[in-house]
């Protein structure tokens, strides 16, 4: 390191606080616009990647974006539902494969996704341990959900009540963990997958209790009239589905009206996709069939517009920061006149003093640039997690 560079370095090292503030200001000035751009572009890529792999979605009429986010990222809350007969009608068209989804419930903070086995092959999800769903009342956990709940295959998880204020609500269902999936880097990692019928049991549309026709259920019988037996509140209901009590589980009502939050449609070709879309152009049945990538691209157009405004604002802020830094720097040079005079008297040229000042600026800017690059690199590593934290709550 030449003399001037060394002196410049020593000056910055001695004035640690000043140097740190300068470097932090410039780092932020460089990092924020770049981070905004990286976060948005990475998020856009992640969003559209999952959407691009989901050809069509059928759901209740309303917000297409809400439908897509619910079906792709399992946002909990109270999604609108459609009847199970909508799935049956789609299947009757023979225009592809159709995968039901029910994302209304959750286990602790993890969404419970009621679906069928086709979903796993459709998303390319593989088991890391255990086995696939084999019977009613079992579940398969994403890697993140298993880690968060601290369970492995053979353990149990419990569904959470929709609201703690509804004391008349359905009982939580204790579900055996049949298997745990490999990490996929998607919203599937945080999900608890169950069969669609298990989701209906969680909702209370199906249940199991002791056989009232048997003599030992006598205390639970309120009245018997012909073939109709009315139970009282003391009847023993099952909170877990096992091989022993599975026969006692049954559904009440018309299963064609049981709820789904959406149906993923996977047509084999473009023609089938167009034919399917044509069937749902009119909104007569309170249904909508959307192309997720189109819906997300509309969202991203808005996001990119906002991003441009944010970057413009940050650029203006950056210019103001540069102006302030230059002002501080010039004032600092004024304060250092005595030091420069001493250097000059001992034998330093104006060029040398200029190089000393330039070296200080160079160290500050290079340090800021390196720090900003490191931060951007780190942020790029975590962009997906940041995005998911916004989309799943």
């Amino acid at each position, binding site marked *: 390191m*030449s*003399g*001037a560079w*060394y*002196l410049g370095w*020593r*000056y910055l*090292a*001695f*004035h640690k606080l000043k140097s740190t503030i300068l470097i932090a200001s410039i780092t932020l000035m460089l990092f924020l616009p770049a981070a905004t751009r990286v976060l948005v572009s990475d998020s856009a890529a992640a969003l559209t990647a999952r959407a691009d792999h989901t050809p069509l979605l059928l759901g209740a009429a309303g917000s297409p974006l809400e439908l897509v986010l619910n079906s792709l990222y399992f946002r909990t809350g109270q999604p609108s539902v459609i009847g199970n007969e909508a799935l049956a009608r789609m299947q009757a068209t023979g225009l592809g494969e159709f995968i039901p989804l029910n994302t209304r419930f959750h286990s602790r903070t993890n969404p419970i996704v009621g679906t069928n086995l086709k979903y796993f092959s459709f998303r390319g999800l593989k088991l890391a341990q255990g086995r696939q769903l084999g019977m009613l009342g079992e579940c398969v956990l994403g890697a993140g959900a298993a880690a968060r709940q601290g369970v492995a295959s053979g353990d149990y998880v419990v569904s959470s009540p929709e609201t703690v204020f509804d004391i008349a609500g359905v009982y939580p269902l204790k579900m055996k963990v049949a298997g745990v999936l490999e990490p996929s880097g998607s919203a599937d990692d945080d999900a608890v997958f169950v069969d669609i019928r298990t989701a209906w049991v969680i909702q209370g549309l199906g249940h199991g209790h002791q056989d009232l026709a048997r003599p030992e259920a006598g205390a639970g019988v309120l009245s018997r009239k012909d073939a109709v037996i009315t139970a009282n509140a003391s009847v023993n209901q099952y909170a877990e589905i096992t091989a022993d009590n599975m026969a006692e589980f049954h559904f009440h009502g018309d299963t064609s009206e049981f709820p789904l939050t959406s149906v993923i449609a996977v047509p084999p070709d473009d023609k089938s996709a167009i034919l399917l879309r044509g069937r749902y152009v009119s909104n007569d049945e309170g249904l909508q069939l959307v192309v997720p990538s189109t819906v997300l691209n509309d969202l991203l157009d808005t996001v990119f517009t906002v991003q441009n405004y944010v970057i413009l604002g940050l650029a203006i802020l950056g210019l103001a920061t540069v102006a302030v830094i230059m002002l501080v720097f010039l004032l600092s040079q004024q304060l250092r006149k*005595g*030091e420069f005079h*001493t*250097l*000059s*008297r*001992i*034998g*330093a*040229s104006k060029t*040398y003093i200029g190089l000393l000042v330039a070296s200080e600026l160079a160290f500050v800017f290079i340090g800021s640039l390196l720090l900003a690059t490191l931060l951007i690199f780190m942020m790029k590593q975590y962009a997906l997690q940041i995005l998911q934290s916004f989309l799943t709550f």
Partner: protein
Amino acid sequence: MIEFQDVSFRYQGGVTGNSSPPGFKGFAIHIQTLAVDRGERIALVGPSGSGKTTLLSLVAGILRPESGTVRIDGQELSRLGDSATRQFRIERVGQVFQSFELLDYLSIIENVMLPWYLGRGSQKAGLHKVDTRRRANELLKEVGLASRANDRPGQLSQGEQQRVAVCRAMLNRPPLLLADEPTGNLDQDNKKMVVDLLLQQAQQQDSTLLMVTHDQSLLGHFDTVLDIRTVSGGGVPA
């Protein structure tokens, strides 16, 4: 060693190399002849504003005379270019100032090595850093500050700081040692210590010492006491 021949100098008000310090605009000195031998130790006295500092600046090549010649060891300073003059100052002149003028962001030893940092990159860079550091350590040891080598100037007393400044001036073993009121900010004990140190260093290196002082008690230590008024026709703002 030092020869002045019909040297005139006047501070300008503008942006020339001889621009004036505050209160010196139009100040002028004229020295008909002045000759100082190698190894001579001279106390330069005279009232404030009589041109003592200006004379030192002319000797160091910081200021250039309007007319006449300043020769150091036969070398006419005005014939040297800017770069050569600066190199001359770094390598052949040691300077000690009244207010020490140490850099607060450098350690004591780095302050002593400052001329080396300034001279680095030139063709006459001379010693390597390791050798320079060894030399700086030797100097600090001589002045009793070896244990403070890594401290900051602010951690030293004023007397200690001036001793560091003397070490800095002596780093390159300069044949010419210029001290501008080096005891002006010191108490009596430190005054004597610093003057003894300057004289001792000058004697060790056979350097010519030219020291400005107002302190009459110190004059007895020098070979010659030179009153600026006896050599300069200036001293009065023109």
